[in-house]
C-alpha cells in the first residue's frame, strides 16, 4: 500500500516495523483456522464463514455471533453482541486517525483493517512512516491469512462428523480467553472485577433469557470502570497510573 513507495525490497523487509507486522500477521491470521472450525461447527456454510472473515474482519465479534448461532439464539441478540464487541474498534480508530493521517479513499480502505492487532503494531511505531508501513503490512498479511485459513478450517470441519470428539467445543471459549488474557494482566484488580461481574451476570441470566442476550447484559458490568478512585479527571493522578484496587467500588458480584 501507499507507505511502501521509494523502495528497496531488502530494506523494506528488514525494517523492524515490517518484521513485527509479518510475524503477528501470520500468527494471528492462522487463527482463522479456529474461526472456520467454530463457524461450520455452529452450522454456518463455508461461504458464510469466509464472508464473515472477509467483511466483518474482527475476530471477537465473529466468534460471538457464531457462538449465538451455535446456541440457537436470536440473531438480533447475536448481531448486537457482535457490534458491541466491535465498538472497541471505534476507539482504536480514534487513536489511529492522528498517527496514520490518511484521508479520503485511503482512509475508507484502512478503516476495514482497524482491529486489535493492527492497532497494537501501529501504535508501537516511533514515527508516522513506520506506523503506516506497519499498519499496511499487518493488515495485508493478517487479513489474507485470516480469510484463507477460515476457508481451510471451514472445509476441513465440514468433513468432521463428531465435533466433540476433536475437542472443538473448547475452541470458542479458549479463543475468548486468549483475547481476554492480556487485558487482565495489564489492568490490575479492577479489570478482574469487571470480567468477573460480566461472567457472573451472563451465567445468572442464561437460564432466564434467550441465548445471546445474557452476554449483552454483561456489558453493563463495564460501568464498574466508571466507579472508584481514578475516575475523576481533575484529580492530580498524572504520576500514578490506574492501580485500580477494588475495594472502593463495592460490587462483588454473583
Amino acid at each position: 500500500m501507499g507507505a511502501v513507495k521509494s523502495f528497496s525490497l531488502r530494506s523494506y523487509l528488514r525494517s523492524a516495523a515490517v518484521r513485527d507486522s509479518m510475524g503477528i500477521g501470520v500468527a494471528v491470521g492462522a487463527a482463522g483456522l479456529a474461526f472456520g472450525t467454530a463457524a461450520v461447527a455452529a452450522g454456518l456454510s463455508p461461504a458464510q464463514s469466509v464472508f464473515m472473515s472477509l467483511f466483518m474482519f474482527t475476530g471477537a465479534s465473529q466468534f460471538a455471533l457464531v457462538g449465538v448461532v451455535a446456541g440457537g439464539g436470536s440473531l438480533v441478540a447475536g448481531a448486537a453482541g457482535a457490534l458491541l464487541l466491535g465498538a472497541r474498534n471505534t476507539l482504536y480508530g480514534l487513536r489511529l486517525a492522528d498517527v496514520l493521517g490518511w484521508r479520503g479513499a485511503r482512509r475508507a480502505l484502512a478503516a476495514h483493517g482497524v482491529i486489535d492487532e493492527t492497532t497494537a503494531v501501529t501504535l508501537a511505531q516511533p514515527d508516522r512512516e513506520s506506523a503506516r508501513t506497519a499498519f499496511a503490512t499487518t493488515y495485508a498479511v493478517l487479513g489474507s491469512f485470516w480469510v484463507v485459513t477460515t476457508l481451510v478450517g471451514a472445509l476441513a470441519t465440514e468433513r468432521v462428523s463428531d465435533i466433540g470428539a476433536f475437542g472443538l467445543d473448547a475452541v470458542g471459549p479458549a479463543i475468548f480467553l486468549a483475547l481476554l488474557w492480556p487485558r487482565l494482566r495489564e489492568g490490575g484488580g479492577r479489570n478482574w472485577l469487571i470480567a468477573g461481574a460480566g461472567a457472573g451476570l451472563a451465567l445468572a441470566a442464561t437460564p432466564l433469557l434467550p441465548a445471546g442476550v445474557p452476554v449483552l447484559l454483561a456489558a453493563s458490568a463495564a460501568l464498574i470502570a466508571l466507579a472508584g478512585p481514578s475516575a475523576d479527571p481533575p484529580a492530580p493522578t498524572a504520576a500514578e497510573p490506574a492501580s485500580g484496587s477494588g475495594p472502593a467500588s463495592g460490587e462483588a458480584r454473583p
Partner: protein
Amino acid sequence: MTLWIALVATAAGCYLLKYAGLAAPRRLLDNPWLRRFATAVPLALLAALIAVEALRGEGQSLAWDTARMGGLGAAVLALVLKAPFLVVIVAAAAATAGLRALGL
C-alpha cells in the same frame, strides 16, 4: 436466508464502527468517561462469552463438562507459559479431545 441478512448487516455495522473512529473528531477520545467505559466493555463481554460457552448445556441450561473444562485449564496453562495464540487454541482442543477419549 435470515442468517445471510444478519451477517451482511453485522458486517456493515462493524465496518461503520471502525470508520467512525478513524473519521471522528479527535476530542471524543479526550472524554475520560467514554474512554474508560469503552475500554472496559470488551473485558466484560469476553469474560461473559467464556463463561457462557464453557458451561453451555442443552438449550438454555448450564452444564459442567469435565473434558471441556480440562481443555480450558490447558489453555490457561499455555497462556501462563506465554504460548502463542494458536498454540493456546490447539492445547485446549487437544486436551478436551484427550480427556474425552479417556471417557471423562
